[in-house]
């Protein structure tokens, strides 16, 4: 999938796309399929500092509430405002209009997986 080029993944099923000093974060296709219908997200305020692997917020589906973690450290510059009225975008387009937050002054996280390694990790989890 072309849209996945340049993405890296956390074992907690978030993705990050880093472009220079800024990064965009979302959850993976696997994560959205496991959560089912997303109905609410509790997201950090703009300006908040996040640590790599630190708690980013909460995502709620019909089934359950789950914690979200930030794959990289940085300062929150934007939370996806569209998700307030359309949380289902996370299900419909997790790598596109279902993005969750943007960060700047990004501190990288060497523990992140590339797509191949993440796919293998997911494969291992579902058995």
């Amino acid at each position: 999938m072309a849209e996945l080029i340049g993405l890296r993944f956390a074992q907690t099923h978030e993705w990050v796309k880093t472009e220079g000093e800024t990064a965009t974060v979302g959850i993976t296709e696997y994560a959205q399929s496991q959560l089912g219908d997303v109905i609410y997200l509790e997201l950090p305020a703009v300006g908040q500092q996040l640590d790599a692997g630190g708690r980013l917020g909460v995502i709620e589906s019909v089934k359950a509430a789950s914690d979200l973690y930030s794959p990289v450290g940085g300062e929150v510059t934007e939370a996806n405002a569209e998700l307030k009225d359309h949380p289902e975008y996370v299900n419909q387009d997790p790598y596109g209009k279902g993005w969750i937050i943007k960060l700047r002054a990004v501190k990288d996280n060497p523990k992140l997986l590339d797509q191949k390694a993440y796919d293998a990790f997911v494969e291992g989890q579902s058995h």
Partner: protein
Amino acid sequence: MVVTAARTPLYEEHVRLGAQMTNFGGWVMPLQYSTIREEHRAVREAVGLFDLSHMGELRIGDETLVQRVVSRDVTRLRPGRIQYALLCNDAGGIIDDVLVYVMPDSSYLLVVNAGNQDGDFEWIKAQAQGDGAVSNVGRDWALVGVQGPRAVGLVQRLTRSELGDVKYYAFVEGAVANVPCVISRTGYTGEDGFELFCGNADSVRLWRALLEEGRSDGIRPAGLGARDTLRLEAGMRLYGNDMDADTNPLEAGLDWTLNLDKNFVGRDAIIQARQQALARQLVGFKMLDRSIPRHGYRVVSDGEEVGTVTSGNVSFTLGYNIGMAYVPPAMAQPGTRLGVDVRGTAAPAEVVPLPFYKRPHPK
């Protein structure tokens, strides 16, 4: 010991339809086929098809035994009629909630919750003080729910039985798509519709015929996810969530299921409880912000814990979040403000009357 979840006779159909499966009450059941939101909407606006074969069925021949174990006076029921009733323990706690069917031969069929099927069976046997009076037929029968505003029309096209004569909480024996069925006008969604009991071997034929004939109605197979969001909107209690053996029927707001002028297990304890002030009461509430209440969350008022959420979720139909909770009777009036402890924050909520959703009356 490895406990394997049982499969209903429709298991292969669910897999073929791409369902996400889940374990529930000892059974592997479809959670959702597409999305819970779409399946929920199909049931409210068109028609949904449910596999309910996990539900238990117990057959009892002896009226005296039925009278002794259920909370309502079944002698008031004619054959072909159905009642919602409770099984209670000696302390008046709810063991299960059941539907009681009076069969044409005047025997009784109890439809019980999947996870309680074996426990109910053993308990009723013990009340009967002997074997044979009750038989567990749940594993011989499949049960298919057809629910939604287009359900009646759909089933009518597949049967010669005159469904206009089958009132809510009544049933007839007939055939649907040439499959012999008990056609029961009941459900757990808040919509009109039927629950069809048939033999295991016929169930795939019935399931496929309904999906095929229902295509023009916009039918969708619907899983346990939608079943739960639908029943919550309709204010229907879920056994194990909203009530259990430590809950008495008065607390659960199920006074109307009690005929205290006849004897049944738990009656004396319930009469005693009725003479005292209730410690807690089940209420419906709506969230005043966007947070989502969940089973087990604390209800708070002025920083104090005053109760517990038993069910909660989004209401797709109403567009806000709803739940049920046990609170002190003084806080049970509609309009009362409550807090729901959502991850350490007291999210604002307001008590509202149950049910949250009532289907519009047909024109």
